[in-house]
C-alpha cells in the first residue's frame, strides 16, 4: 500500500474550504444589505425626527402650523383600531386554527381551505380595503368608522393567526397529545387542558406579528375612508349613555398613524417632513416594541415547556 500523501490531502482540503469562506462572506454581505438598510432608515428618521418628539407631539391634534401639530388623534385612532382588530381576529383565528388541526377531517375540502388560507395571506391589502368598503361600510352600514377599520385589518391578519395557531399546535409532540387522549379525554378536554396551553407561545407570537403588520397598514384604511385631518377624539370606550352609547366610539371617524404620516409627507413645507419623520419613528418603535414583546413572550413561555 502506498504511503498516504498528506501534503496532497491538505492542499485539497484547503482548496475545498475556500468555498466555505466565500459563502460565509457572501452570506454576511446579503445579511448586511437588509440590516444596514433598516439601520440607515432608522438613523435617518431618528436624526430628523427625534428632536421633534416631545410631550406635546403626543398630546396635540394635527394643525396647519407644523410646530403645533401632534399625533394625538393618530395614535389614539391606531390604538382603538388595534383593539377592535385584536378582539375580532384573535378568537376567530385561534378557533379556526384549532378546528382545522384537531377537529376537521382531512379530505380534499380541508386541503382546499388550507391552500386558500395560505393564498389569503398573500392577497394585497388594498383588495381587503375594497372588500371592506363594499361589505362593512356600505352593506353592513358600519360607516367610515373605527369598527370598519378594525374589522378590515382583522380580516387581513386572520390568515397569519390561523397559520401560526396551526404551526404551534403541530409543534406539540404527538405522544403528549396521545397521552391526553389515552386517559379518556374528549377533543375539547384535550384542546382546553393541553393543546391550547402548550401552544400559547406560538399563537401569541403569530398574533403579535399580525398586529405589528396591521398597525402599519395604510392602503385598506384609506380605502374605507379614514380621515387625513381630524381634530377631535372618539368618545372614551365605555363612556356615554349605556348600553348603546358605550359603543359610540366604535362608530366614530378616525385616523391612524401611517395615514397621518402620509398626510405630512405630502405637504411641501420642510417642517412637516420633520413631523412625518418623527411620526414614522414612533410607528417603527411601536412595531419593534410589539415584535420585541413577541420574542419575550415566546422565551418566557417556552422555558416552561420541555419535551
Amino acid at each position, binding site marked *: 500500500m502506498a504511503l498516504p500523501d498528506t501534503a496532497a490531502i491538505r492542499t485539497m482540503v484547503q482548496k475545498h474550504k475556500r468555498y466555505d469562506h466565500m459563502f460565509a462572506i457572501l452570506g454576511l454581505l446579503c445579511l448586511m444589505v437588509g440590516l444596514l438598510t433598516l439601520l440607515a432608515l432608522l438613523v435617518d428618521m431618528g436624526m430628523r425626527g427625534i428632536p421633534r418628539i416631545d410631550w406635546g407631539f403626543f398630546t396635540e391634534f394635527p394643525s396647519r402650523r407644523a410646530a403645533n401639530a401632534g399625533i394625538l388623534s393618530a395614535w389614539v385612532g391606531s390604538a382603538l383600531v388595534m383593539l377592535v382588530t385584536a378582539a375580532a381576529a384573535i378568537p376567530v383565528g385561534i378557533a379556526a386554527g384549532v378546528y382545522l388541526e384537531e377537529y376537521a377531517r382531512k379530505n380534499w375540502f380541508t386541503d382546499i381551505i388550507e391552500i386558500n388560507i395560505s393564498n389569503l395571506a398573500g392577497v394585497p391589502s388594498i383588495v381587503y380595503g375594497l372588500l371592506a368598503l363594499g361589505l362593512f361600510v356600505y352593506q353592513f352600514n358600519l360607516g367610515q368608522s373605527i369598527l370598519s377599520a378594525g374589522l378590515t385589518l382583522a380580516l387581513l391578519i386572520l390568515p397569519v393567526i390561523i397559520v401560526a395557531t396551526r404551526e404551534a399546535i403541530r409543534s406539540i409532540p404527538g405522544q403528549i397529545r396521545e397521552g*391526553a*387522549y389515552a*386517559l379518556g379525554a374528549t377533543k375539547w378536554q384535550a384542546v382546553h387542558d393541553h393543546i391550547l396551553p402548550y401552544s400559547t407561545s406560538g399563537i401569541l407570537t403569530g398574533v403579535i406579528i399580525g398586529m405589528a403588520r396591521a398597525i402599519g397598514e395604510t392602503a385598506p384604511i384609506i380605502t374605507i375612508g379614514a380621515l387625513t385631518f381630524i381634530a377631535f377624539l372618539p368618545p372614551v370606550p365605555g363612556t356615554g349613555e349605556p348600553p348603546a352609547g358605550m359603543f359610540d366610539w366604535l362608530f366614530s371617524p378616525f385616523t391612524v398613524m401611517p395615514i397621518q404620516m402620509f398626510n405630512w409627507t405630502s405637504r411641501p413645507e420642510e417642517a412637516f417632513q420633520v413631523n412625518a419623520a418623527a411620526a414614522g419613528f414612533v410607528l417603527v418603535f411601536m412595531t419593534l416594541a410589539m415584535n420585541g414583546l413577541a420574542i419575550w413572550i415566546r422565551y418566557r413561555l417556552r422555558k416552561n*415547556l420541555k*419535551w
Partner: protein
Amino acid sequence: MVTNMPNAALQTAPTSTIKADIRNFNFFYGDFQALKNVNMSIEEGRVTALIGPSGCGKSTFLRCFNRMHDLYPGNRYEGEIVFHPDNTNLLAADVDPIEVRMRVGMVFQKPNPFPKSIFENVAYGLRVRGESKRSVLEEKVEQALNNAALWNEAKDRLHEPAYNLSGGQQQRLCIARCLATDPEMILFDEPTSALDPIATASIEELIDTLRGKVTILIVTHSMQQAARVSDFTAYMYLGEMIEYGKTDDIFVKPRDKRTEDYITGKFG
C-alpha cells in the same frame, strides 16, 4: 397457516378468568392489512407479552385495545375484542373510543408526562372524569404514586414540574397516571426502550407488583424482558399470531419453527 391454539395454555389453569376475547380480528391501515385473523384470549390479572420482529404488528395490535387508531383517518378494524365480564365488544360501532379509553390505560414507549406538575399529571385522568374535589384528588394521587413506587421520591415535590424527574421516574409517573383511574387493563408499549438498565429494572419490578391487580398487555422487543415479566407470551410475525401460550412453554418448547427461530436468535 395460523396456529390458533389460544386456549391451550388456559385450560391448564382452571381458576383463571378471561378478561378479553379477540375473535377473527383484522386491522387495516388504509388498504394495507396490518393484522390478519388474530384470535386469542387474555387472562385477567396476568401479564401477557407481545413479541416479534419490527413491523410484525405488535404495537399496532396493542393500540387497538384503547382504539388509539381512531385518532387518525383511514384505519379500520374487523372482528371483535370482547371485554368480560360485561361482554362489551370494544370495537362495536356504538362504543365510543373515549369509553374504551376510560377502561383501558396506556403507557407509552417514551415517558410522556404533561408539562405540568407531578400532582396534575397524576390527577389528570380523574379531572377528565369530572373529579374536582381537592381531598379526593389528593388521596387518589397519593395512592397511585404509592402503587407506582414513586411516592417516597415525589411526595415532597408534588408541585414541581414533572420534567424535573429522571427518565425512569417519569415513566413511573406515567404508570401512576394510569393507575389513578383504576383501569381494567393497562397497555405497555415498549415501556423501557428509552430507559437505562436500572430504570428498566424498576419498571419491571413495578409491573410484577401490579400482577393480580390489573390485566397487563406489554409489547417488548426484548425477549429477556418478556421472559422475566410475563405469564403468557404471544409471538407475532407479519401481522399474524404465530404462537400464543404460557411464557415458560413458549421459551422452553416452542411448537412453531418460526417462534423457535426468533427466540433462539436465528432471525429478528
